[in-house]
């Protein structure tokens, strides 16, 4: 066996996760500038995730996947995030959807079969949760599942569906029936090929330009066995919220590491130019490294906490846990913005440039999205309600 064969042998489903993540991140890094400049989907990196089996890796072993833990997924998300923020976010959103499906199948045989396909064919999953006219509250829908016999139709006006046109499956929230209350939601799995997406908005943004989060009028046709059996209320609190917030935080950790690494290289180069004196900015760098360590701890503790209680529905549904997951999102999104701004402060005009080895421009712009994607103010308002009912911690 040649070295190349040994390496290729490892870069498939079942191989070492770290090696596969490093390979995909390498591909992502090579195209990150182009993805950003052209505001296009990181197709090369997602192809690398698919070929290395990382798209289906969170599917449970008994359904043909690898059953990766949230800790392992967070590792991959951070490595990808350091290379290309958009690729990291696509990975994070995709696995939030995969787990929202696989963890809430009840005993649905058709959905179990579909999950096997996700692992076998490495399908990409997107989601359509927000809706125009509901004021940004993802736990509330206007659209509804229109069930006639076994046939289901669903029309949803979605202000954003990230990488919707690139996905194989789109998970859509909707009211259970035409007569259901806005909060009585189900999750419907729509095949891309039986879903019409009419773009209603573009995605020309400050950062995260590769997530292709276009607005769409979605019109899907499917069958009733594609309705996830458990209510979305449970899916949201037990899986979607903790998994998405943890994986997003992991991506932000990767972005923060990348920015701190750039600042560190800058300071070391300055130190070599004036040996014997501590360069300006070195003290700031110490503070940034401390903040980075704080973010690392947040991600590590959130993911290991979830892994420990992943089958304990009472613990996952507890108010205190939801509050912690809300806090994780708000705190880590604030930290990434602080850390990246600090890296810009240290690298100065070199960091301000769009080109050159000390540029932090792209990651700075990407980091501004963290507090805004599900706005921190909205999450804090939700938490403010929760603390009114929380009895102790």
């Amino acid at each position, binding site marked *: 066996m040649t070295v190349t064969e040994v390496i290729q042998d490892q870069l498939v489903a079942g191989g070492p996760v770290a090696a596969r993540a490093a390979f995909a991140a390498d591909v992502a890094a090579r195209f990150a500038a182009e993805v950003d400049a052209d505001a296009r989907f990181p197709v090369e990196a997602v192809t690398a995730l698919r070929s290395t089996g990382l798209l289906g890796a969170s599917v449970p072993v008994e359904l043909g996947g690898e059953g990766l833990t949230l800790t392992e997924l967070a590792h991959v998300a951070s490595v990808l995030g350091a290379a290309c923020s958009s690729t990291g976010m696509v990975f994070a959103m995709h696995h939030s959807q995969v787990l929202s499906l696989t963890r809430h199948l009840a005993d649905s045989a058709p959905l179990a079969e579909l999950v096997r396909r996700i692992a076998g064919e490495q399908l990409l999953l997107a989601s359509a949760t927000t809706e125009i006219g509901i004021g940004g509250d993802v736990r509330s829908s206007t659209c509804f599942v229109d069930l006639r016999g076994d046939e289901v139709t669903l029309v949803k006006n979605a202000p954003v569906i990230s990488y919707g046109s690139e996905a194989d499956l789109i998970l859509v929230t909707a009211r259970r029936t035409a007569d259901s209350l806005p909060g009585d939601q189900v999750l419907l799995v729509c095949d891309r090929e039986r879903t019409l997406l009419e773009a209603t908005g573009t995605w020309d943004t400050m950062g995260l330009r590769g997530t292709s989060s276009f607005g769409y009028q979605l019109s899907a046709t499917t069958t009733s066995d594609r309705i996830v059996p458990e209510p979305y209320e449970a899916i949201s609190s037990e899986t979607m919220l903790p998994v998405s917030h943890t994986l997003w935080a992991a991506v932000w950790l990767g972005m923060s590491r990348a920015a701190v690494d750039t600042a560190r290289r800058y300071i*070391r180069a300055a*130190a*070599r*130019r004036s*040996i*014997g004196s501590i360069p300006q900015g070195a003290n700031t760098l110490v503070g940034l490294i401390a903040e980075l360590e704080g973010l690392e701890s947040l991600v590590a503790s959130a993911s290991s906490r979830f892994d420990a209680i992943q089958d304990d529905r009472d613990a996952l549904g507890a108010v205190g846990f939801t509050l912690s997951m809300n806090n994780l999102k708000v705190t880590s999104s604030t930290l990434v913005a602080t850390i990246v701004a600090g890296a810009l402060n240290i690298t100065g005009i070199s960091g301000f440039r769009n080109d050159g080895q000390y540029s932090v421009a792209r990651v700075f712009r990407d980091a501004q999205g963290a507090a805004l994607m599900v706005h921190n103010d909205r999450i804090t308002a939700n938490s403010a309600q929760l603390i009114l009912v929380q009895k102790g911690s």
Partner: protein
Amino acid sequence: MSTEEIIREVLDTHAKLRVAASSVAPDDDLYAAGMTSHASVNVMLAIEDALGVEFPDELLTKNTFCSISGIEAAVNSLTEVRA
């Protein structure tokens, strides 16, 4: 200039040895010859600058900078990987 000669030059400038670097044998303990850990940081930076290398964290141990031969071995391990 050979790598060893560059290292000796850097030591003369930055290591604050009690003796000239030319009188230090390749395996002599540089810390015993007067180099402080603070000075070893400057030695590292100057060697990186002079040889265009960067020491990864795993090489930044007290052992690496303990002797001229140790520094030379570390530098060689970096340049070999690159070639």
